[in-house]
């Protein structure tokens, strides 16, 4: 089967300053359906630039990028927008939900810009279905500021899923979350991946990368390591362990001695 993402010798050079910055220097990569890839690297390694190009938000200076058979590197602005809408789903570090807009309406947003015309009812149904997948169907009428960080990120994941994308792109999705919520979000990703959804995730936390199947490390714009994750963490198990530890802490925890 053809890889869903195929990159050949991708370069990105920023020309805006005095000295041109060569952010990505010849990355070649194939991602197959059902993969769960972690993209790691320190800041300045080029991982964000690579992610922007993968997300069709930016065009490479040189090289080829085939997404689901389409040569993305040659498309114009509006076609890129359609690619983002139809073939990609985005999850951001800062959630990026529209404020004062209900969870359901946030999830519907990509459908509004979809080329496929759906009736209001169909849109609502699909958005509800996606909220159901992330376990938030009961909170569909909540505003983002009425939801916790983890819940907001789950709404964002539902929004990314609503157009049934080929690849789900997550840019440090756990960066703004505490460790337990991070594991919960990773659990959602693992569940989606088991259902066959391809996920590419940028992170700089090693333990978070451990929930993925494949680990890619970038340094100075080139891939320095590309290997399968050994001893993969399973979110469900980790959460269980955490719950046990908490319960134990409560059992042993002695009351504050009175003076």
């Amino acid at each position, binding site marked *: 089967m053809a890889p869903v993402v195929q990159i050949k010798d991708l370069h990105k050079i920023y020309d805006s300053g005095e000295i041109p910055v060569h952010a990505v220097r010849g990355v070649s990569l194939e991602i197959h359906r059902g993969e769960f890839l972690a993209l790691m690297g320190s800041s300045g390694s080029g991982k964000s630039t690579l992610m922007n190009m993968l997300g069709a938000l930016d065009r490479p200076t040189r090289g080829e990028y085939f997404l689901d058979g389409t040569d993305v590197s040659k498309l114009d602005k509006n076609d890129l927008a359609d690619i983002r809408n139809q073939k990609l789903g985005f999850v951001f570090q800062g959630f*990026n939900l529209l404020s004062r807009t209900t969870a359901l309406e946030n999830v519907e947003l990509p459908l509004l*810009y979809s080329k496929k015309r759906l009736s209001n009812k169909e849109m609502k149904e699909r958005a509800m279905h996606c909220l159901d997948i992330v376990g938030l169907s009961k909170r569909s009428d909540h505003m983002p500021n009425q939801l916790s960080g983890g819940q907001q990120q789950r709404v964002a994941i539902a929004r990314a899923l609503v157009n049934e994308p080929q690849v789900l792109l997550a840019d440090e999705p756990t960066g703004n979350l505490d460790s337990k919520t991070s594991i919960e979000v990773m659990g959602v990703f693992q569940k989606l991946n088991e259902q066959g959804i391809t996920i590419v995730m940028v992170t700089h936390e090693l333990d978070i990368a451990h929930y993925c199947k494949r680990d890619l490390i970038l340094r100075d714009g080139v891939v320095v390591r590309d290997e399968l994750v050994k001893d993969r963490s399973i979110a469900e198990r980790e959460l269980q362990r955490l719950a046990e530890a908490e319960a134990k802490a409560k059992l042993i925890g002695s009351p504050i001695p009175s003076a």
Partner: protein
Amino acid sequence: MMRFFVTVLMALRALRRNTMRSILTALGIIIGVGAVIAMVSIGNGAKAQVQNAIAGLGDNLIIVSPQSLNTGGVRGGAGTGVTLVPADADAIVADLQIGSNKVMSVSPYIGGGGFQVLANGLNWRPASLLGVGPDWPDIRSWRVADGNFFSEEDVKSAAKVAVLGKTTADTLFPEGNAIGQMIRIGSIPFKVIGLMDTKGFNNNQDQDDVVMLPYTSHMKRLTRRTNVSSIYVKARNEDVVDRVKQDLTDLLTQRRNGVIDFQVQDQAEIAALRNQATTTMTYLLGAIAGVSLLVGGIGIMNIMLVSVTERTREIGIRLALGAHGKDVLTQFLIEAILLSSMGGLLGVALGIGGSTIAGKYAGWAVEPSTSAMVIAVAFSSMVGVFFGFYPARKAASMDPIEALRYE
């Protein structure tokens, strides 16, 4: 189409999110349009009143009045000259009425007011005290209700007789026995010989609040003047009006050895002259409207620019999720148009309400103009398009990566 409808809904939602700010933003447009609608309504009312007044003068009427007087380079208004005399009226009668039979009736006219009238132990200051000829009722199509109008004889002898309008008669003689009674104007007694029918209000003036004397009596006994204010001429029918005007001009020019110090106007010309003032006012209003809409538009542009900056992240999200630049442009443009056209609609409501209240309070005639309303709303929407375009394009041309990174 569906996409457009959704965009309108999104724009409405965005405006509702900041209700107070939206109202304040539209306030410039609301006040501008409101002022224009109110002014046009009042102006139209005034215009209609003037036209009614001129139409109410009588049919096929021609008015000869002295040319305006120039005093040291200052041009007075029409009728400030003192060059028309009763002999002119006599000549018109001799030449055009008896001579060529084109004219039905002729009457000199002396206007004025401010005379105290005493009668029956009461005193009253009628709105006008006119000096006219015996043909006056015919010229003004005004019936005598009781008694008689004064005759040619009364004019010749400068008789001390008077005819009263309904209001004056009712005020001075509440019992209704005016005919045959004496009234005093200043120190001179006049005998009431007739009462006029009700004529009603014209141009906010009670036409029935009037005392009419033979013009000769007015001149010799009351004011000691030798000229008349104007001469009213009634043509035989509509077709000869132009002909009569020419004849009047020729006759009076001849009588003055070629000096033209008078003007001859028919009702249409008088109406046109009076309308000129209203038209000037309308242009002025248009200019004010333009300025206020411009200011309102700048207000909208300002707020839209603030809004675009404030919602940079939202724009980034929309673009990242697949919105085309066109979608974002439409969204912000529609917001601007909604702001301005709703402002326009509210302004129309404000203008109608305001002018109605002002009209009630000040006693002005008010006539709202549908075309002015349509133009005002359409124009304010155009202001929205014009001033909303720049901020909207700024939003649409954002780079999604930059916009998403914006804090």
